[in-house]
């Protein structure tokens, strides 16, 4: 059984003089109880993936593929049905930019109470839901501009939890939190999965992914290049890009991957990582396929 089955999802943005290929031919599934972490370099398409599922893409976006939640294809079902049946009810979103996601003229308590009411829950639960997200009840009486970045982050998390959706997409939900609060948030997400829910966690924080994820999908230049059980990815990364990303951690080599990711307006026909890859050779001019998208993976068993 799966909660979400994504098949061949692609998202393109049409600009005046170019087309941005933000997500390419992405296939993923999330089952109840699973915590799937999506990691990858800035700009590789993680938030666009989340926005596509939640129906938040701008008008110049072109979406192909399917994303099934039960019978409903959330990419095709239309705004009305998304609003009525999907958003909040079956799918929650913690957005990446809390500062801009919050209505400036309303206190946290009033936003939270409204969301609870909209989902037929007791608005008096506001304090409890906030506490679950690690936010003290006192902070709910402030306006968004009076909140610290970390408090605003916990408030948008609380808002997404208020409707108690079976599948939660959390886009960088630990930004600006101190260590104890990061752990609190991660434990909260893990607990949701242990209670039968599921979480798609978008994060730059590889240590966080290692701590709570069951599976990890690594994205590079709009594609998933490696999708494996979390312990395997961290113990023995198979894709050279994954290995390079792990090496960039401040408690490892702290060296950036040389060069830049390719422009999504002019993706190369072969492997998109070739220009930066130490293992690249002539074979890499054609596009690699498989669970590890690489012609020369670091761990060969992973390909089988």
């Amino acid at each position, binding site marked *: 059984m799966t909660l979400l089955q994504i098949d061949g999802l692609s998202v393109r*943005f049409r*600009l005046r003089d*170019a087309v*941005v290929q933000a997500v390419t031919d992405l296939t993923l599934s999330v089952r109840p109880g699973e915590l799937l972490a999506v*990691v*990858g*370099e*800035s*700009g590789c398409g*993680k*938030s*666009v993936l989340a926005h596509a599922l939640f129906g938040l893409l*701008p008008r110049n976006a072109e979406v192909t593929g399917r994303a099934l939640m039960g019978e409903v294809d959330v990419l095709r079902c239309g705004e009305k049905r998304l609003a009525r049946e999907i958003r909040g009810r079956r799918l929650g979103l913690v957005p*990446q*930019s*809390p*500062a*801009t996601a919050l209505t400036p003229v309303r206190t946290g308590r009033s936003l939270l109470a409204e969301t609870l009411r909209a989902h037929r829950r007791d608005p008096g639960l506001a304090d409890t839901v906030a506490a679950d997200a690690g936010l*003290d009840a*006192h*902070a709910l009486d402030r306006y968004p501009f*009076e909140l*610290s*970045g*970390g*408090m605003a982050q916990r408030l948008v998390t609380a808002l997404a939890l208020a409707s108690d959706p079976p599948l939660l997409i959390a886009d*960088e939900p630990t*930004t*600006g*939190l*101190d*260590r*104890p*609060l*990061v752990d609190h948030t991660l434990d909260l997400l893990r607990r949701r999965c242990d209670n039968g829910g599921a979480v798609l966690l978008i994060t*730059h924080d*590889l240590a966080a992914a290692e701590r709570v994820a069951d599976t990890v999908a690594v994205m590079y230049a709009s594609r998933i290049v490696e999708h494996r059980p979390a312990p395997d990815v961290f113990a023995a990364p198979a894709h050279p890009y994954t290995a*390079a*990303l*792990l090496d*960039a*951690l*401040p*408690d490892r080599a*702290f*060296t*950036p*991957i040389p060069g*830049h*990711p*390719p*422009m*999504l*307006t*002019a993706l190369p026909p072969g492997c998109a990582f070739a220009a930066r890859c130490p293992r690249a050779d002539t074979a890499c001019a054609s596009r690699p396929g498989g669970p590890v998208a690489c012609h020369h993976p670091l761990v060969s068993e992973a390909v089988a």
Partner: protein
Amino acid sequence: MSLTATGIRAGYRGHSVLDDVSLSIGAGETVGLRGPSGSGKSTLVRVLALLHTPDAGHVSLDGDRIDGARHRVPADVRTRIAVLFQSPRAAADPRLSLADLIAEPLRALRRPREHVAGRVAELADRAGLTADLLTRRPHAVSDGQLQRACLARSLAHEPRYLLCDEATTMLDASTQALVATVITEQQQRTGMGVLLVSHDPALLARRADRTEDLPTPPASVR
């Protein structure tokens, strides 16, 4: 030469956030600042950046005591300090293309047009932004791309001090390392002093010459 806050008391709507806090950033130095959520790190950054007037205490910049904040401070004094905020979406003007965003401080200083164009291209490249991104406006780039445009903008006019408020928390490891490299290079070239607000012990251990702590706030404001 230093950017120094002395005996700062500051807060909002009656509740006090900082009480008698002092901090100094020397030229060329990288100072880490940590403290639990709600301890007033961002407020201290705003005071140091001359964006928030403290209720008591004062800021001095390279030996000169500064009174007031914002437009009460002359532009050529204010621009000696640059800030990189946690949320680029809230900090960037949504009407400007990334190229204009980076160029704005240079134009404000009336630098010649060719100089501005060259400098924008150079800074964007250092920040890892490919050419296709520069004509786009903030809504059409990712958060990390926008943050790197803000970084390029903050370095454009070669500030004496750069204050980074959790500025790389939303970046992946490789981009974080790239931003660190760009800032360190500029520091070595111009002697810029840097304040690094972060919760990440590994990052602070890696980059800060010394790290200061803000005390835990009363539980009610966490």
